[in-house]
């Protein structure tokens, strides 16, 4: 067996091992590669920056534990940004597990910025129905969500005073890992009610949302862990996404090397067989 045949028949477990090493080593010994901020993330950040203190942000959590490494850092960074600017957060979840993950991020942010539940932020919980729920929010928020996530009537929360429907919300942010998610918010909240919508999505689904960004249907877009890391960079924070960027870059470099390497030996082998 010559060297070309050996490389063609390489055990895939060696590739797995190299990928794991490419992830573990940079996490143990960070290099601190520079994180460039892309235009969609900058626009997302600007959309929050443009809001006056006391403005209302509707934060909708449409993700679960399986996409936590990508979306949860966005949630943390976003909450931190909102609280640092004294914005009020009204949150809901169109995915059941998103409610508790979002609550965790908001409680963490509230401790850091000394914010109070019911005054500065509220979590209205989960409601099944996706697109129908968004339509209902456009008409009447208190009727759609009469209780918060812990089944307490929303009338007791100061933050809900004067909030009737989406007209009282200044910006909608959907952190989504699928449907229902950003797509439905764009369709209903932007398309029907003309609200500004920003989206934080998993990297797999990010390319599908660029047309919305190009058409102005989305104000800003964060895609995957990279998007979250860029947002953390704008906030001058080092969160879990930034910590993972060295590993991400090195793993990508390794995969590019594998693709070039495999193609080279594939064509060499083909040539030799001729």
């Amino acid at each position: 067996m010559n060297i070309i045949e050996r490389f063609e028949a390489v055990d895939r477990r060696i590739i797995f091992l190299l990928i794991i090493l490419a992830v573990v080593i940079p996490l143990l010994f960070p290099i601190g590669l520079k994180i460039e901020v892309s235009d969609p993330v900058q626009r997302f950040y600007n959309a929050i920056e443009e809001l006056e203190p006391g403005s209302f942000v509707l934060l909708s959590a449409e993700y679960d534990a399986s996409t936590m490494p990508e979306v949860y850092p966005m949630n943390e960074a976003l909450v931190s940004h909102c609280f640092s600017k004294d914005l009020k957060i009204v949150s809901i979840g169109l995915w059941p597990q998103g409610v508790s993950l979002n609550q965790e991020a908001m409680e963490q942010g509230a401790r850091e910025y000394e914010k109070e539940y019911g005054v500065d932020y509220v979590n209205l919980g989960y409601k099944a129905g996706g697109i129908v729920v968004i339509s209902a929010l456009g008409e009447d928020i208190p009727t759609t969500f009469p209780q918060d996530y812990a089944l307490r009537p929303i009338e007791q929360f100061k933050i809900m005073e004067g909030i009737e429907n989406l007209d009282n919300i200044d910006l909608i942010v959907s952190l989504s890992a699928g449907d229902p998610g950003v797509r439905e918010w764009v369709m209903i909240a932007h398309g029907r009610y003309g609200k500004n919508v920003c989206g934080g999505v998993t990297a797999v689904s990010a390319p599908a949302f660029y047309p919305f960004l190009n058409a102005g249907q989305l104000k800003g877009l964060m895609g995957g862990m990279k998007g979250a890391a860029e947002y953390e960079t704008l906030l001058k924070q080092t969160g879990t996404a930034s910590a993972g960027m060295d590993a991400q870059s090195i793993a990508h470099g390794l995969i590019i090397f594998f693709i070039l390497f495999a193609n080279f030996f594939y064509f060499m082998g083909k040539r030799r067989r001729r």
Partner: protein
Amino acid sequence: MTTDIGTWIAALLTLCILSFLYKDNPFYKFAEHLFVGVSAAYWACYYIYNILIPNLYNPLFVQGQLLYIIPLALGIMMIMKLFPQPAWMSRFPLAFIVGTYAGYNFITYLQTYAIDQVRATLVRFVALESWQEFFARPGAVTFLSAIALPVVVVGVITGLVYFFFSREHKGIFGGLAKTGVWFLMIAFGASFGYTVMARISLLIGRVYFLLHNWLHII
């Protein structure tokens, strides 16, 4: 190293799943079956307590809103699909769902995916402000930003030409179709790149959990 029992269980189950990368083994099988069982139980409870009880049981049996008999009947008819004899009954709720969803989404989809997209693609062929920025600050980034809109327009038109099968792809038409294929290939490549990024992110998330939350070494 943490003393939290929950973190230990999560870490050991993560290792069980990752062991599949070496080869199929009993640890992987155990974790896989446990996941399937726990997920099924979780979702069953969630649907009962978050959907059935608040949206059907409470309005109908607690508040006495008789209109809710209709969704109850449609729900029972849907379950009939499980039995061969009365399976035909499930067609009615299915037809109701398809009809309602189609009617509800028709205008919204048209607005979001057709009208707004066509307007953004074709009405603004050239973004003058991007070209002004390019001439004020010449560089690769400003140049790419300036040509973005024309590139999108060319990509849309040639992509549509490729999917026009009523005429043979020859001559100028064939050239346009070939250009469309190039745009499609680049789009697929970008999409694949994002997919790789997502998968690596998930691996980073798990490794970070093992090193940070479990072993406390970072």
